[in-house]
């Protein structure tokens, strides 16, 4: 009965993005797509998609109650994407490293165009030695001990005509 809980994380990973049938204590049986397995409690998170695209149902089977896990179907890129999307909170942005670099470049050029002294210090943009901007180089990523400069640079960042509007993560 303890075999499920004693699997290693890499073995649990093999069940992610697969449709499984979980048999639990007291003859409970549950189907669903495995979103994740908690490494601390060995709980299995199963997602069931509704037929007509309604809100998905999530069921978690606690690790200590798991008796058997049977794989019914392998998932693919599409199912992985669907699972990922439903747990991403609305408004979360995920930028790839390329895009982050572009954002930094665009911001640096915009600041220079407005005659603001800016230099690159590693991953951060340093403005006039009193303000830093870190990834992903939005208005909220500015940091300074001087309120006035902070406010001015923030409004400048927001008014950058070159910056692409933030998009939710694609899956």
């Amino acid at each position: 009965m303890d075999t499920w809980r004693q699997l290693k994380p890499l073995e649990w990973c093999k069940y992610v993005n697969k449709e499984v049938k979980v048999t639990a204590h007291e003859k409970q049986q549950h189907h669903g797509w495995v979103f994740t397995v908690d490494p601390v409690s060995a709980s299995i998170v199963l997602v069931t998609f509704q037929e007509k695209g309604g809100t998905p149902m999530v069921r978690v089977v606690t690790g200590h109650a798991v008796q058997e896990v049977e794989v019914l179907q392998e998932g693919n890129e599409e199912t992985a994407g669907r699972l990922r999307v439903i747990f991403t909170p609305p408004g979360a942005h995920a930028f790839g490293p390329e895009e982050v670099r572009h954002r930094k470049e665009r911001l640096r050029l915009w600041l220079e165009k407005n005659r603001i002294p800016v230099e690159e210090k590693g991953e951060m943009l340093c403005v006039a030695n009193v303000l830093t901007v870190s990834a992903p180089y939005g208005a909220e990523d500015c940091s300074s001990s001087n309120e006035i400069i902070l406010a001015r640079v923030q409004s400048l960042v927001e008014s950058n005509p070159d910056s692409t509007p933030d998009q939710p993560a694609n899956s």
Partner: protein
Amino acid sequence: MRPHVSVLRLPRGPDPNGRGFDPNSPRFIALCPTTISASTETGTDSVQMREEQRARSVLRESFLRTLIAMTNKQVQFHMYERVKVEAKFGASDIDVLNFQVSELHTPIGVQKEALLRCQDVISYSFDL
């Protein structure tokens, strides 16, 4: 809306403190795991350890997102002895041993705030 029941003090159970929540109670020690699953250092090289640790982080982060998605939602808890209760999920502790819930609907009434022992739960479900 059903009226709330006042907090009942049930007769003392087998352990005098905390009814199984106390980390030193025999029930807690018997049921709650003291270690999490991990490879031992000897017999595995460091590359595999790194892989394992990365896998563990990814799995755990996904699970934490599940808990976040569950917050303030109505959750049905299926417990042992075919007990089914419904409540609004509040928070979990780090070891996923206790859940804090509100408006717990039980056969004897609605408890305004309650703590559920995860060891008593077989599965729980909610709609996103």
